[in-house]
């Protein structure tokens, strides 16, 4: 870490930042905890139902959304407090999640194309549209900060974003609470859930929209490319520590918080991008769970 850590006297930068520059860095931690909690709640279902690729598809749609932001001349509002630009990006992500949910349900019923195919199409389509729109609008205004979009930024989060993150997290948590039995049944046994009268297409759509919502919230901090890590790593680690769903969900939320807080501290200390720092800590947690946790067979299904 030599050359990257700049210490003021003997004090660790994180503590100094939080004490003397609290107004700047405290919202980042506050928002980070909200993001980590809800990501952790959703992560076990993402891992068990193998939705991480869908998460990638949805988050990459943000790139297309950013292209739309550029075309609409809203790039100047993408810094702190720029909720309008992020609102446009969020709408693109949520629309993509809805589209994937509806199309995969329809294709499943007709037995045509797989989920992966649709997600692959949405992912590359959004990236292509984003790149074209950005190119078309270049030179006509401020340039998009691609690094912030792709890897996240601490300075993009202020008190408004922290409040927004908590409001979104509470909404996600409430919807998850209301829908939990249907989502659990669906993720555990889709044909069985259908036979018990669960509208599995609706359960899929609800979970995908929650994921999209969560990715949009996490994107500001962790960036487009790394936001989905928050929706995978804590759940994968927690699944290796317990055979009880409630414990898995609780531990996933805990690992998420440790990953985000630890990653932000690492980011404060090293000036590394926050998204990358969070992912590094989450991977460490996952590594520890792989070494010390129980091996799990993810691909098995019951043939009764």
């Amino acid at each position, binding site marked *: 870490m030599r050359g990257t850590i700049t210490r003021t006297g003997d004090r660790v930068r994180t503590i100094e930042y939080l004490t003397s520059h609290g107004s700047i860095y405290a919202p980042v931690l506050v928002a980070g905890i909200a993001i980590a909690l809800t990501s952790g709640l959703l992560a*076990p279902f993402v891992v*068990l139902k193998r939705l991480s690729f869908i998460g990638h598809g949805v988050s990459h749609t943000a790139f297309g959304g950013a292209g739309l932001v550029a075309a609409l001349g809203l790039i100047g509002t993408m810094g702190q407090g720029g909720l309008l630009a992020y609102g446009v990006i969020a709408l693109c992500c949520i629309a993509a999640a809805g589209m994937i949910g509806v199309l995969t349900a329809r294709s499943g019923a007709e037995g045509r194309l797989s989920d992966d195919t649709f997600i692959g199409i949405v992912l590359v389509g959004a990236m292509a549209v984003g790149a074209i729109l950005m190119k078309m609008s270049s030179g006509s205004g401020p340039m998009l900060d691609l690094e912030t979009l792709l890897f996240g930024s601490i300075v993009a989060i202020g008190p408004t974003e922290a409040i927004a993150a908590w409001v979104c997290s509470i909404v996600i948590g409430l919807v*998850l*609470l*209301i*829908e*939990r*039995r*249907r989502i*659990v*049944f669906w*993720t*555990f*046994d*889709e*044909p*069985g*859930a*259908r*036979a*018990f*009268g*669960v509208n599995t297409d609706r359960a899929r759509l609800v979970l995908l929209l929650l994921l999209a919502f969560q990715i949009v919230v996490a994107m500001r901090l962790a960036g487009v490319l790394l936001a989905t890590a928050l929706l995978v790593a804590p759940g994968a680690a927690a*699944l290796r520590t*317990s*055979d*009880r*769903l409630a*414990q*898995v969900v609780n531990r996933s939320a805990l690992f998420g918080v440790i990953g985000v807080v630890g990653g932000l501290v690492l980011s404060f200390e090293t000036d590394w991008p926050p998204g990358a720092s969070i992912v590094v800590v989450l991977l460490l947690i996952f590594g520890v769970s792989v070494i010390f946790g129980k091996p*799990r*067979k*993810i*691909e*098995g*299904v*019951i*043939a*009764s």
Partner: protein
Amino acid sequence: MSGASVEPALRIRGLSFTYPRAAQSTLESVSLSVQPGEVLAIVGPNGAGKTTLLRIVQGLQEGYRGEVRVLGLSPGEARRRGLVGSVAQRSGAMLAYPVSGHDVVMMGATVGLPGWRSPAAGVRERVIDALERVDALRYADAPIGTLSGGQLQRIMVARALVIEPKLLILDEPTVGIDAAGQERFADLLARLKEHGNLTILLVMHDLRAVASGAASCDRIACLRRSLHFHDTPSGITAQVLADVFEHDLSPIFRGLHIEASGEQPRPPRTDQGSHDAGHDHADGGSCAHH
């Protein structure tokens, strides 16, 4: 339910179904009825239309012709009222899911309960009762990934029973289970029959499995697109099986422990036409002829 003794648990009349864009119908003029408390085994080769028939009975498949009444109701309404329980051929359930057998049965019991409400004491009792009925209480707290195929099957049957259905559908319940497990399944079937009022619809393509459970079956229906036989197991002949399975199944047929005609079966027919007119009963044991 005072009308239970009058109204068949399942009544199908002239049921035909063709999948969109399919050249041939999957089901053709199928008629059968099952009385409350009976166990009916529907037997047929792969692709005979068994699973389609089950989907229709469960209210999961629309677009059919003919009449289907489940306990006097449309299949969808019967399912919505929790009168039909089912165990799928391949449940699709994830072995890696961090739940116990008890949790799985609880899922079935609480699926309609709002997420913010905890299950009442009565629901917990129903879960224990269902596990007891299938003799699965001993391993109900073990993670499902550690259970054997037969134990998992019992958990799935308990999940179907927990809603206290009047009609229980078991789709290929012995697939993937060894010979000893099939024997235990026959015990399970006998155990379920003890409760009297539960009507059971079994679907099987493996005649050996039928042979092991035949003692518990009140009737057997042989299906290959149309119904070739629908009567008590003792009435089945080698010729019926040869027609349905298009194969000489005499060795297995003898394993059914039912009276054989003594004749060698004729080569299978290709027109799927009817035969065995002696088994055409007016009700309860009717055989569809075409």
